[in-house]
């Protein structure tokens, strides 16, 4: 970027000019807001603040001519170097602003004036005009108010009419038009007649439309005044006085917003223009509540679409929580290109919506109200296109279709290329403006692409996020920021996201990269900058270390400092895990475990070196110790054989060992409660489990990201097929089963149980581990399974299990630990250890097998007798072939593959040989999709209720009427909801028995279907209530639901109903 340095200098000068101009504009805005002062008085002040906004303030003077009067300083000197803008109110020039130089100055765009100054003076003129209009309207209304206080109600609207005629005839015309439309729609013949006569719109005249295709005669009507008089005359006949008054006042108010509606309706309006309109809308101070509901919703939806997302799912939720006013927050913080049609991207959208949901939750606790979002600037997604064109990089756009290996190889060069590319100057200006606003606090540049953070494609960690120290001169900081933006842009073309998109069929979708520039949450600790702690939290807990923890208890991964260590998997370090629903059930219990699995390192920003770093916590504490934010709540004291809470004075961190346990934070602060409430609120409002990122600076809790929690079908319980032929069943399990499936396994790596326990030499055992590591690189990724004895990867006695590390197994699809019972001794398995956590994170399925449990199957003959490929694959480990076996399943079975299905709700799992595809897949796929569209739970329940009613023979069973109520009727049913039925029963005891039996059959079937769809198991899905005539008479029990005023039961037609 060296070539840019000169350009940077010029640009900075230009920027200073912009800052002056902006300042000037703000001051004018400020002055115009003083509604108590007279216009002339305000204009006197305005001419004072104008000159500093121009390029040569010393020689600059200004005056305002208004309604024939010139407001100017006594020393005003007319000169030929003048810039002038008219003040136009209701299409009529009522005055002008003039800015002039007292002497000749160098030529520029418009005489001595800059083109930006032209824009400035126009804007100011516009603002003044607005203010004048506003004052006139206000005066009109006040006059009307005064009038109505004295006049009778009947005359009120006439007063309004009079005022409008005087002040704003154009508005009156529009209102007349609305009124006549209204009357026509209401079926007033006279109005229709009038309209036909006026006929600007042919569609309202059915005779003309049906008759001919010739052009329609133009308006027969005379002047607007005539029409107005006529319209109001008709209205007076057909509408009550107050009706007319209400309509007229509503239309007047709505008219104020009409320019915004029009701008949004027009697809060609650029984002910049939309923002200008929005700014004007803010300026004229429309109260959203004054607009009709449909106008409000229309505005919201259009704005959401323009700023955030076209996704219907998103809009549907967002429109409930994002008001027009909410967009004001964004106005000053968006960097957008001219003619912009880009958006802010998925991450921005998710975060913005989440924050609004929190702000608008009526029942939110104080804790939630205190949740903050860091100050953010947004770069619209279409800048990347401009950037690409600016640098003639168009070739990169289709790189996504190249072979992935090539993408991978060339990617580093592409990054380098992007980083040496230059930015369009507008872009650079925008970034500089952002930097000025954000100041010199550390920043994070985060990707926010259009595809990101949508349900089913979270792109987690696929695109770059970069931290900036943001120290140094303005030029240095800007250069660093541009560098980071370029790198984030490059990441869109990286191999990982390309592969990810290919896997999800998103390669052909147009992808653009929006960017968020955010303040980093935290504070300075010595030479470092970091938050007290950060992390991620999930609504659903997929790593339940204790059977007492339920999925909906959620999961927090908490680390000290920046959250990067919680988001990424880091070797040799661990986040602290908390289930917010069960914060006292910890993964680690003994002092040894607590210490071993506590975080040891911290990610932070080194302010001296101006960069992101990882530092040993011990070192950090030695250096900065007591100044670490909220340290007292984060650490526990290591004493000789236990971990003590920190009570009393802070220890000397130089000598006293501590462990980051977050004990105080969890036990003594509302931190965990806050996250739990947050997760619940967001999940409830968004209708999907969520995944959030957060940071805590010791005082405030910041939300950094919110997106639907991805579970890609993983967490869905797989239906367990019954009656599998015994010769196809390889294993089954009934303990510690989690949800999931591995559809295709082609290779099994089997460590023979007996063989391993008889290995006498430690080296031989280590060799097994090494060989497994080699196989991990050799076998087809995610299609092989490891089976072996005891605790894999455990520290200590390797006789207890194969010595492997994460990287030795990270490509496997599944790990099965086999626990052979010896006497009454049952070996402990890896379940619940951190090794297990690694598996969960890599979505490697885990299953313990207890072959000695008679209710399970373990086909060790298949495993022991199949041909062993080890000697061919790894000749150097051929000596292990007695113990280590590699089985090619299709080769061994004539083309079958191993399929593993696991269902936690049933506590059952099976591994069996099957042809490549089976119907069951489509079932599972369906349940995965239905689970992601939670709104659908009621729909099929409703259909089923209709079906049952239609099948129910009222005479046979003595049922008079069939009602549906509760969550299915109200369309709020969740995956575990019942279908609540109310049956008006008039039959005898025998019929009753038969009826209940008949319904029970349905109930069981529906429960089964629900299970297959959602994985929720219940004894029956129907909740049947029988009511009798007497009940209805007395309105007792559920009978109140029939014909109830609120939430009544819905009657469904039965078989023989007419």
């Amino acid at each position, binding site marked *: 970027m060296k070539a840019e340095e000169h350009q940077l200098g010029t640009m900075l000068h230009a920027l200073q000019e912009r800052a002056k101009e902006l300042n000037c504009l703000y001051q004018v805005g400020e002055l115009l807001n003083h509604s108590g002062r007279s216009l002339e008085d305000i204009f006197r002040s305005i001419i004072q603040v104008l000159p500093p906004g121009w390029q040569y303030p010393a020689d600059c003077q200004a005056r305002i001519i208004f309604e024939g009067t010139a407001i100017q300083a006594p020393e005003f000197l007319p000169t030929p170097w003048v810039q002038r803008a008219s003040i136009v109110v209701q299409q009529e020039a009522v005055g002008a602003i003039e800015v002039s130089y007292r002497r000749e100055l160098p030529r520029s765009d418009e005489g001595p004036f800059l083109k930006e100054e032209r824009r400035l003076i126009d804007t100011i003129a516009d603002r003044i005009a607005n203010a004048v209009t506003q004052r006139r309207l206000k005066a009109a209304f006040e006059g009307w108010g005064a009038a109505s206080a004295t006049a009778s109600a009947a005359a009120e609207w006439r007063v309004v009419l009079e005022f409008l005629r005087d002040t704003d005839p154009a508005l009156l015309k529009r209102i007349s038009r609305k009124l006549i439309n209204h009357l026509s729609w209401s079926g007033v013949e006279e109005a229709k007649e009038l309209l036909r006569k006026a006929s600007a719109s042919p569609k309202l005249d059915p005779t003309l439309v049906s008759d001919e295709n010739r052009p329609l005669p133009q308006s027969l009507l005379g002047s607007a005044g005539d029409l107005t008089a006529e319209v109001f005359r008709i209205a007076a006949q057909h509408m009550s006085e107050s009706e007319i008054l209400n309509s007229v006042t509503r239309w007047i108010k709505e008219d104020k917003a009409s320019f915004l509606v029009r701008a949004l309706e027009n697809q060609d309006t650029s984002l910049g223009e939309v923002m200008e309109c929005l700014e004007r809308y803010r300026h004229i101070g429309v109260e959203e509540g004054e607009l009709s509901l449909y106008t409000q919703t229309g505005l919201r939806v259009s704005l959401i679409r323009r700023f955030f997302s076209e996704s219907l799912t998103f809009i549907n939720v967002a429109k409930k929580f994002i008001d027009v006013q909410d967009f004001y927050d964004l106005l000053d913080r968006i960097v957008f290109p001219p003619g912009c049609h880009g958006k802010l991207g998925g991450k921005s959208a998710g975060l913005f919506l989440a924050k609004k949901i929190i702000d608008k939750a009526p029942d939110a606790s104080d804790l939630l109200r205190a949740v903050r979002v860091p100050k953010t600037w947004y770069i619209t997604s279409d800048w990347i296109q401009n950037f690409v064109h600016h640098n003639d990089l168009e070739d990169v756009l289709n790189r996504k279709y190249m072979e992935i290996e090539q993408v991978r190889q060339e990617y580093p060069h592409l990054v380098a290329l992007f980083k040496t590319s230059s930015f369009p100057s507008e872009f650079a200006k925008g970034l500089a403006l952002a930097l000025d606003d954000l100041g010199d606090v550390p920043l994070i540049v985060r990707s926010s692409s259009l595809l990101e953070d949508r349900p089913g494609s979270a792109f987690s960690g696929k695109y770059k996020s970069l931290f900036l120290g943001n120290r140094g001169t303005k030029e240095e900081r800007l250069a660093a920021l541009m560098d980071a933006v370029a790198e984030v842009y490059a990441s869109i073309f990286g191999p990982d996201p390309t592969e990810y998109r290919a896997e999800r069929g998103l390669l052909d979708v147009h992808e653009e990269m929006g960017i968020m520039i955010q303040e980093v949450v935290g504070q300075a600790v010595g030479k470092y900058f970091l938050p007290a702690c950060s992390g991620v939290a999930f609504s659903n807990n997929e790593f339940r270390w204790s059977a007492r923890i339920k999925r909906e208890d959620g999961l927090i991964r908490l680390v000290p400092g920046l959250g990067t260590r919680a988001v990424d998997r880091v070797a*040799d370090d661990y986040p602290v895990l908390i289930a917010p629903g069960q914060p*006292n059930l*910890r*993964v680690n219990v*003994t002092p040894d475990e607590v210490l071993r699995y506590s975080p040891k390192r911290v990610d932070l920003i080194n302010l001296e070196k101006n960069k992101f770093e990882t530092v040993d916590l011990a070192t950090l504490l030695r250096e900065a110790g007591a100044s670490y934010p909220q340290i007292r709540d984060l650490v526990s004291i290591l004493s000789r054989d*236990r971990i003590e809470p920190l009570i009393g004075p802070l220890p000397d961190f130089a000598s006293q060992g501590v462990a980051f346990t977050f004990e105080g934070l969890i036990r003594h602060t509302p931190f965990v409660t806050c996250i739990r409430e947050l997760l619940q609120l967001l999940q409830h409002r968004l209708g999907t489990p969520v995944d959030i990122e957060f940071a805590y600076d010791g005082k405030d809790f910041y939300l950094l990201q919110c997106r639907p929690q991805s579970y890609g079908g993983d967490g869905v319980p797989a239906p367990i097929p019954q009656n599998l032929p015994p010769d196809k069943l390889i294993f089954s399990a009934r303990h510690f089963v989690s949800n999931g499936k591995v559809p295709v396994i082609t290779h099994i790596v089997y460590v023979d149980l007996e063989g391993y326990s008889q290995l006498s030499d430690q080296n031989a055992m*280590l060799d097994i581990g090494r060989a497994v590591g080699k196989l991990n690189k050799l076998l087809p990724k995610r299609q092989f399974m490891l089976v072996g004895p005891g605790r894999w990867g455990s520290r200590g006695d390797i*006789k207890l299990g194969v010595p492997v590390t994460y990287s030795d197994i990270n490509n496997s699809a599944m790990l099965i630990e086999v626990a052979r019972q010896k006497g009454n*001794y049952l070996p402990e398995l890896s379940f619940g250890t951190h090794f297990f956590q690694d598996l969960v994170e890599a979505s490697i399925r885990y299953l313990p097998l207890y072959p000695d449990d008679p209710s399970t199957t373990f086909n060790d003959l298949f495993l022991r007798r199949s041909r062993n490929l080890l000697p061919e694959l790894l000749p150097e480990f051929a000596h292990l072939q007695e113990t280590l076996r590699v089985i090619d399943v299709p080769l061994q079975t004539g083309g079958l593959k191993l399929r593993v299905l696991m269902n936690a709700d049933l506590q059952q799992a099976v591994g069996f040989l099957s042809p490549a595809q089976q119907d069951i897949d489509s079932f599972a796929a369906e349940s995965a999709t239905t689970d992601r569209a939670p709104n659908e739970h009621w729909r099929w329940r409703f259909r089923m209720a209709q079906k049952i009613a239609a099948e129910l023979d009222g005479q046979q069973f003595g049922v008079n009427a069939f009602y549906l109520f509760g969550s299915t009727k109200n369309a709020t049913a969740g995956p575990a909801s019942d279908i609540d039925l109310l049956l008006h029963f008039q039959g005898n005891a025998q019929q009753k028995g038969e009826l209940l039996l008949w319904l029970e059959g349905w109930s069981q079937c529906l429960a089964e279907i629900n299970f297959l769809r959602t994985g929720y198991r219940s004894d029956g899905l129907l909740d049947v209530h029988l009511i009798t005539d007497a009940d209805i008479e007395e309105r007792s029990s559920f009978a109140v639901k029939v014909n109830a005023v609120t939430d009544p039961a819905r009657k469904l037609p039965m078989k023989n109903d007419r």
Partner: protein
Amino acid sequence: MATTPTEPVVDRKEAAKPAQSSNRSHKPFNSFQIAQAQFDRVAEYLTLDPATRDLLRFPLREYQFAIPVRMDDGTVKIFRGFRVQHNDARGPGKGGIRFHPQETIDTVRALSMWMTWKCAVVDIPLGGAKGGVICDPHNLSAREQEQICRGWVRQVARDVGPVIDVPAPDVMTDAQHMLWMLDEFERIHGGRFPGFITGKPVGLGGSLGRTEATGYGVVITLREALKELDIRPENTQATVQGFGNVAHYAIELYQRLGGRVIAVACWDQADQCAYTYRKRDGIDLQQLSSITDHFGGINKHKAADLGYEVLSGDAWIEQEVDILIPAAMENQITGDNVNRMSPRLRIIAEGANGPTTPEADAQIRERGILLIPDFLANAGGVTCSYFEQVQSNMNYFWEKDEVLGKLDVKMTSAYFAVSDLARRETLSMRDAAYAIAIGRVAKACHERGWV
């Protein structure tokens, strides 16, 4: 737990102590049967009368009880608790309390019997006991664990106490659990009885010197062995397996005696294997400790930078040394590697539990190497627990010097008794230790007129 080399509290080690007579490469089939078989063998040698055998083959008393706990979610869960007092002829019972999901009464019985022998071999006036609760602390909140601890005490409050039976920490219990139990006991009995339980933190009834006790104990027995063999410590060199708490203090005391440790072996978490770190002119304990993590793992690269040779994990056994101190985990000296020991080797001091397999044991004996058996060599820990109880009972706490001085006396005389018997009866040190322990308990039972 059993194999963690850094485990400081000896009581815990005993918990999973493998049976000496069983095939060590497999876990015990039924630990109580193994313990009985082992007793039978020694009883035969001692020609104990049938009544004594009958008495000692089984615990004197067993308590099994329910502990109802109101869980955090409001439900009540019933936990099963145990206390087994194997024998208290020589003094109040002593033994840990285990929290373990697969706890069985037989395991507790076996462990209580081992406690009886262990206390007897160092000749401290305590009997043997053990207790436990079937539970997995990984499924329990801290509050729930506290309730289990208090519930346990409530159920046996009248059958335990400073003069009846003294619990201690064990598998998955620690000082915190002991304090909850002590508090409950004191509430019930209305007073302060710190001698009710051991394993308490210093300042709240704990004893100084506990950190050092096990490691020092190992070297005190080693010192006596050297004296017997008429070898001057300053002329010896040793290798140590393990670099945890026990190894650390063993090395410290041995170096103070003038010996030279030329290599230590320890586990490397990152590489998932052990390494031996050798420095022929003697390791620098201070220096090596400064590059060791909390779990006794030495930083391989820093060690190499400091001039240590990094050798394979089992190289410690084949060094040219006079003394081996296996202080890491069980089953380290086996039939396979016993032949690789230097001809110069004279003494093995078992700092860990069960580091030597029976095959290796036999060969070591044939070669005339003096082996100081684990439950004598590492009995410094239980001895210090006894001191903690004594100090607690008189509510007067000694300085560290005094604790360690008394430890020296106890360990020295324990060693002498065992070595004397071994010499007189030409028994292995291991067999002699068992014979002495069981003999002492049998004698106490006789003298009390029980049998």
